[in-house]
């Protein structure tokens, strides 16, 4: 429902790669010299030591640690600290001078350049959290992290969005997480990472995930934005769209 109210602007090409060291460079130098609200300090370790970090092969781990930021593993405050919030386009003096209920919040995520916007709620607060969750979805759809297929174990957030019949999914993963759950985004990102690594081949990816090709296609088709991103990725590899 909130989704229907969201207008999305994306200012970057797709898929977007997170080149090594770029995020952290932007993070430390991209911030203006004056203090900016919200000024919560961002800790890099919070992102890279998260237990749901990007799954890279063991040998790769040293190389990859800290290279590809796990944005979706960050808390809202941490993610927010990497964003610029533009609300009042033409602002004037603001504060006590002004009575205007803003209808939109626009977040620009510095490291990736992704822009997410939420409109329409009465509460600026709610617009901000809708924009943040939209940002999470966009990050999942746009930011690709490389995978070493020789040594690949699907991360738990990916296992969580798989249907129960997946043969690599153990019982303790719990019930299947659907597109309306906020935890769907990290799984979707990991799935697209895998699909990217296998050059868009759904059957390859399905094999790795212990599913039939049909079951994986159905999962991809169950969410419009996931389907669109998967098809865009397939198109870039010269493959036909899933339908």
């Amino acid at each position: 429902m909130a989704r229907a109210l969201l207008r999305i602007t994306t200012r970057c090409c797709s898929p977007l790669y997170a080149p090594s060291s770029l995020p952290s460079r932007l993070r430390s130098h991209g911030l203006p010299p004056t203090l900016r609200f919200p000024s919560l300090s961002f800790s890099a370790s919070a992102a890279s030591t998260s237990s749901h970090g990007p799954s890279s092969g063991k040998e790769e781990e040293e190389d990859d640690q800290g290279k590809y930021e796990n944005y979706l593993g960050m808390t809202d405050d941490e993610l927010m600290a990497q964003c610029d919030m533009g609300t009042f386009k033409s602002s004037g003096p603001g504060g006590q001078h002004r009575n205007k209920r803003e209808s939109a919040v626009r977040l620009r995520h510095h490291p990736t350049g992704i822009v997410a916007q939420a409109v329409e709620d009465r509460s600026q607060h709610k617009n901000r959290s809708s924009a943040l969750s939209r940002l999470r979805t966009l990050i999942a759809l746009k930011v690709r992290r490389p995978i070493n297929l020789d040594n690949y174990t699907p991360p738990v957030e990916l296992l969580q969005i798989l249907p129960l019949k997946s043969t690599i999914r153990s019982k303790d993963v719990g019930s299947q997480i659907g597109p309306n759950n906020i935890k769907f985004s990290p799984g979707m990102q990991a799935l697209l990472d895998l699909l990217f690594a296998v050059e868009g081949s759904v059957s390859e990816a399905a094999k790795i995930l212990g599913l039939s090709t049909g079951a994986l296609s159905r999962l991809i088709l169950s969410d419009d934005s996931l389907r669109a991103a998967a098809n865009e990725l397939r198109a870039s590899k010269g493959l036909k769209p899933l339908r």
Partner: protein
Amino acid sequence: MLSLSARPILLPKPRLRRLLLPRPLSAATASALTPPTPRTPTTAAPADPTPLFLRPPTHPVPPAALEAFRRRAAALVPPSAPHLHRHLRWFLADASTPDHLLRAPLDELEALWLAHVRDRRPFQYVVGNEHWGGLVVAVRDGVLIPRPETEAVLDMVRAVQGFEGGWWADLGTGSGAIAVAVARMLGPHGRVFATDVSEVAVQVARLNVQRYGLQDKVEIRHGSWFEPLEEVKGKLMGVISNPPYIPTGDLPGLQPEVGWHEPKLALDGGKDGLDHLLHICEGLSSALKPGGFFVFETNGNKQSEFLVDFISTKWSSSFRNVEAVLDFADIKRFVRGYRR
């Protein structure tokens, strides 16, 4: 300078008449047709001070009548102010229930809508609330409507180490928005003491405290700045204030929703706008416990720069890490720091 004679007197356009004609003219709508005189200061000040959104839905309305009202009200929205269509949706959402009951008679809703569109009475006074900081804050004429900029104060409080267990003061609490939002973040030992000289503010703040069930955590005290806080002096973990900071000379030029309708007591900061801010600064070091935190909202860049400089030079031995903090429009809106 905010006298009534300064208000432009707007006569209803033919379209407005159409809205009014088919209905019997209530006292409020009648005065809407009459130029305001000093004896009727606010055209649509409600007889019932209970915020509209909190009144019981006791007025049945046929769906067709409500729909007709919606169309008449929408027709009043000038093309130059499309955001009023959004307000109309929110107005109907706050004033009615899905089973066709209204919180005020239709006539009164007509008058309220007219007052918003024509007299520029703030939408928040019309419905009686503002959505702020994740809360629905009750407001009414006589208290400042909390501003979105001020929400940032909550994040700054949350960033203070150990804030959950501390005693906090909110000076000039107005609707109590800050006090309530801060109290909701506190742990079992945390408390908020909020002061205001305005009787209306004290009433509204108490209503909000009660609505959020925070009577045990928030105390609203009537009086000037630190005066009602004698016995907690030196024990406060933090002092928060959004005092009046607009330079007196800027008051006549304010947006009508603000200048015509919000209390001057909540806006007027004296000649440079700094009267209250400086007064509060003077009281800070004796109110805060060592290591205590403070944050003020200011009129923006110049005031913030001045205060940072003033506090760090005049009282360098009392405070540390004094800095200006930007709001989301990149204006240096806040000054914060710690007592040594």
